[in-house]
């Protein structure tokens, strides 16, 4: 039986309207209608057609039943199980800024150093501006940056779109909206904002137009800043940074130096609390950036540090056990070696004890100590202090130390007083930190240690050597001619350094790098403070001197005086017998002060 046919069956005969066709079924007349209950047997052609109709009905019915069943199932599914099957896209969307391009950078107290802000930029559709003169009048009143003549010309052009000012502040946007000028609009763009401007220019760095970090932490931690919304905690304390920068600026101005840099580091952790390099630039105005201002002298600059290296030289000798604080060294005559003459700045020209070598900053004595130590041990010691590799601080702008190659005996001799080996200030500060903190070297870091941070340090010298070094550095500070009372209560100890700048023709007497590296309080050092001035000039107040002791040391003392209370360092009475006991070191001719007799009946 054929259920369906795709074609209508062809008529058996030619269709003739007038022809009488055989009826499909017998005409049902009233008389012929069968009574109820009677079975009618239809046969022939009629029966075939009915059969086919019934089959079609059945199949259609089944198809519809299946379809409705499916719809019912789906309906139940959607209505009853929809929440578990597919969550609403809106409910799933978190209430957070949709896209954050970059994480914030904050200092150790959580002060915002860099953040990304939606910044409106002002544009105009000059065709919609009714009165360009009035609009220009009103706009220049609100935004002094805009030049009236230029603005008027821009607004009078027959163009559908012109930029008026990129990156305006929310207040300016508010003020412009208040003017109610038609045809002005704002386009919001993401912009990096540095609230402290110049103060953090080298450490934090800045980003380019596409939001990629170009220098500083912005560059070195670019991936981290892009991938996570969590702010990056720097070890910098913006208050200490401010003080260090102010004091360096003051000294640079006073001594007409071409540049300066300074670092404050926590000796117990290696965290850098402040890092300043001057001149600096404003990250919001990159026209202020050039080769001079863009250079981070604290990490990228490498300098011959001069006499500050004598601390390291002495520590190496004490640690190796080849000398003691009171062992004597021959500093009677300048040393002549292969065409060089090594002389003292203010020579004693006699036998000096190790302590005196540091106290008088004797180059001759230092060379004698280094000769006793030998090249290999000197090299190994400097290597352990990390002075022969670039510093591991989290910046890309890290200077590679200039190491003599080959390392001849003359290099061993000059390195003992800080010439012939150039290192970056941040490396030196890390090394000096290990000299005073009991002998553990902690790599300087710009990232604040979390509470669960495990400190990893390497022992470079013993506790005893470190204590001797503390006494020696205190001795140097106490004998400094430039002491002015600043920072006395914080028991500073330090070592000056003055290095003549090397030029093509040899060392230049007039161009110096003067530095002072100090730690405080010397009874239990907590911070290392370093200041370096590039080509300072002598002034009458310093008797014409531009040495580390006269230029950098007073800077460091002022910094310490100001940051001491801020960092919670306990001031102490430097005259008290306990302090003198803790920091005393005998050198010939040094008179120990009598302990103050406390007057009976006077109590504090």
């Amino acid at each position, binding site marked *: 039986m054929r259920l369906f046919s795709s074609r209508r069956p062809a008529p058996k005969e030619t269709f003739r309207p007038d022809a009488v066709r055989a009826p499909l079924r017998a005409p049902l007349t009233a008389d012929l209608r069968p009574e109820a209950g009677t079975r009618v047997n239809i046969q022939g052609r009629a029966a075939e057609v009915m059969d086919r109709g019934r089959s079609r009905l059945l199949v259609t019915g089944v198809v519809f039943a299946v379809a409705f069943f499916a719809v019912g199932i789906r309906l139940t599914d959607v209505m009853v199980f929809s929440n578990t099957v597919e969550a609403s896209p809106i409910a799933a969307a978190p*209430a957070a800024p949709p896209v954050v391009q970059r994480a914030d950078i904050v200092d150790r107290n959580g*002060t915002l150093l860099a953040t990304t802000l939606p910044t409106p930029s002002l544009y105009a559709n000059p065709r919609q501006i009714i009165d360009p003169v009035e609009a220009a009048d009103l706009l220049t009143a609100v935004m002094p940056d805009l030049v009236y003549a230029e603005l008027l010309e821009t607004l009078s052009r027959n163009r559908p779109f012109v930029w008026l000012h990129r990156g305006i502040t929310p207040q300016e946007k508010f003020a412009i909206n208040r003017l109610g000028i038609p045809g002005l609009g704002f386009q919001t763009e993401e912009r990096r904002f540095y609230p402290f401007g110049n103060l953090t220019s080298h450490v934090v760095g800045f980003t380019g137009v596409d939001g990629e970090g170009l220098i500083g932490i912005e560059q070195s931690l670019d991936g981290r800043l892009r991938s996570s919304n969590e702010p990056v905690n720097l070890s910098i304390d913006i208050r200490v940074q401010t003080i260090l920068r102010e004091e360096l600026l003051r000294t640079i101005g006073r001594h007409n130096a071409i540049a300066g840099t300074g670092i404050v580091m926590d000796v117990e952790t290696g965290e850098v609390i402040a890092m300043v390099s001057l001149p600096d630039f404003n990250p919001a105005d990159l026209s202020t950036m050039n080769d001079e201002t863009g250079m981070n002298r604290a990490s990228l600059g490498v300098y011959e540090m001069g006499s500050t290296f004598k601390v390291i030289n002495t520590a190496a000798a004490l640690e190796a056990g080849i000398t003691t604080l009171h062992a004597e060294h021959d500093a009677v005559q300048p040393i002549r070696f292969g065409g060089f003459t090594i002389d003292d700045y203010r020579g004693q020209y006699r036998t000096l004890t190790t302590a005196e070598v540091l106290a008088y900053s004797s180059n001759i004595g230092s060379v004698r100590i280094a000769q006793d130590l030998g090249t290999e041990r000197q090299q190994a010691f400097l290597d352990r202090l990390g002075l022969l590799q670039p510093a591991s601080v989290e910046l890309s702008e890290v200077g590679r130390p200039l190491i003599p190659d080959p390392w001849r005996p003359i290099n061993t001799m000059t390195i003992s007083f800080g010439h012939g080996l150039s290192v970056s200030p941040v490396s030196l500060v890390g090394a000096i930190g290990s000299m005073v903190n009991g002998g553990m070297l902690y790599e300087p870091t710009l990232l604040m240690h979390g509470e669960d941070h495990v400190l990893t340090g390497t022992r470079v010298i013993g506790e005893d050597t470190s204590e001797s070094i503390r006494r020696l550095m205190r001795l140097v500070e106490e004998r400094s001619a430039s002491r002015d009372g600043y920072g006395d*209560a914080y028991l500073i100890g330090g070592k000056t350094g003055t290095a003549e700048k090397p030029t093509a023709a040899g060392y230049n007497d007039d161009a110096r790098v003067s530095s002072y590296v100090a730690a405080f309080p010397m009874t239990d050092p907590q911070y290392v403070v370093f200041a370096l001035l590039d080509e300072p000039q002598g002034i009458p107040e310093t008797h014409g001197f531009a040495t580390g002791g006269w230029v950098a040391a007073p800077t460091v003392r002022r910094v310490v005086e100001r940051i001491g209370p801020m960092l919670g360092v306990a001031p102490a009475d430097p005259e008290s017998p306990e302090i003198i006991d803790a920091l005393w070191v005998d050198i010939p001719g040094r008179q120990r002060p009598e302990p103050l007799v406390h007057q009976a009946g006077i109590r504090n």
Partner: protein
Amino acid sequence: MIRWSVTLFSLLIGVVAWTLFHVSYEVRTLESDLRGLNRSIVTEQQAIAVLEAEWAYLNRPDRLGRLAHDLTRLQPMGPDQVLMEPETLPYPLPVLDIPANLVVEDGPLAGTPFPPRRPGSGTGSAFDSVPVASTGFATGGATDVTAATESLGTDPGSLVVPVAGGDPLPLTNVSIDVPLTLILQDEQGAR
């Protein structure tokens, strides 16, 4: 029968349809509310970010220093203004109970309790407790008092008043209105 079930089913269908319609629209409203809330949260968060940046900008240490210099009399803290151990701070001891059994032994007021009591106030003194200056402030005139009474008051912390021994101070000259300077003995009994 058939009519009854048809009625029931149409009713059921009607109720279900209405409920579905209603719930669906309610969900749509809630979702749009949620969208609005999320949008305003994001706006607020951006506003907070802007305000935080402005706060950091306004709190630049150099600006604060300038404002403090121009508008206040505050000065940077010096090391002599820092005291690490609070117990060394010279401040007046809060209160000291005066022993109740002190009696003036000599002079015109001999036999009367010291300090004087109001009539009818029983054993309680009008000066049950007297604020006492610490030794840090006890200088000057007070020296005479203790010099005269050095032998007294071996009990640590007891009060030294000129009531016996040596050369007692004429108490008649001590006016109650005048602030009394009283000296604390320390453990050794020496001043």
